[in-house]
């Protein structure tokens, strides 16, 4: 399935936190937002390939045996590598944030007053990054095609000169 760019998943076992973020994202954008109380439920739908997942770090407040955010992050990156994951946590610790980035998180947001604004910025940054990535790929392909075309042109000119079909090419005398 192709990446669903306009779909966002929120995974949080705190229903208030999940609803607050969902309502904010819907208010500021046209995204379709789905909420999951556990990582396991999100993984059941991950083949839908959402564009972004906002993933809570701790997911065991309701079900003690639920997989935690880092484990779910690893599973998401394995099953849907193009989906960007933004970790969300009440912990304001740099080592935790860095650890989540090592496992493939795009960003790390600390829950609080500014978290909705930061979530909005994360969405903006992800789409801007994707647009830049797309442009870079396009320009790379274009330069490859131009390079091949240029090389083909040189080869043809040399062959024409070699076979005597063209003469008097300054700078290309053999």
């Amino acid at each position, binding site marked *: 399935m192709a990446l669903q760019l306009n779909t966002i998943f929120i995974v949080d076992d705190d229903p*208030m936190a999940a609803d607050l973020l969902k309502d904010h994202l819907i208010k500021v954008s046209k995204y379709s937002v789905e909420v999951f109380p556990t990582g396991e439920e999100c993984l059941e739908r991950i083949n839908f390939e959402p564009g972004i997942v906002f993933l809570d770090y*701790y997911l065991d407040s309701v079900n003690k045996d639920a997989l935690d955010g880092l484990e779910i992050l690893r599973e998401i990156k394995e099953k849907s590598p193009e989906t960007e994951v933004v970790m969300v946590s009440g912990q304001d610790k740099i080592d935790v944030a860095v650890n989540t980035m090592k496992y493939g998180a795009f960003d790390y947001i600390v829950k609080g007053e500014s978290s909705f604004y930061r979530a909005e910025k994360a969405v903006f940054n992800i789409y801007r990054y994707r647009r830049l990535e797309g442009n870079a790929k396009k320009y790379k392909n274009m330069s490859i095609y131009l390079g091949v075309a240029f090389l083909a042109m040189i080869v043809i000119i040399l062959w024409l000169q070699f076979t005597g079909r063209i003469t008097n090419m300054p700078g290309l005398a053999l």
Partner: protein
Amino acid sequence: MKKYITMFTSTAPGMLEKIQTDCAASDWKALKTSSHSIKSQLKYMGAENAQNIAFEIERLSGEATDTSNLPALVNQLNELCTGVIKELNEEVEKF
């Protein structure tokens, strides 16, 4: 806003009860989790004092080395949250 206040006032009593149960059972791991949960919600409700106490409970129960203050902190949290819930219920009635 009314939706979130109602959400908090309906779930907070149960969360407080869980915190008290975990503390009474000296289940520090469970207490860390339950205090972490209520901490986020207190943050959204702007209850800074209660949030700070929840954070302290989370920290101490996570470290599990100096747990002697935890029962007092849990009682303090319970008192503060009861006041917060009462105030919020009064506010909701005005909507």
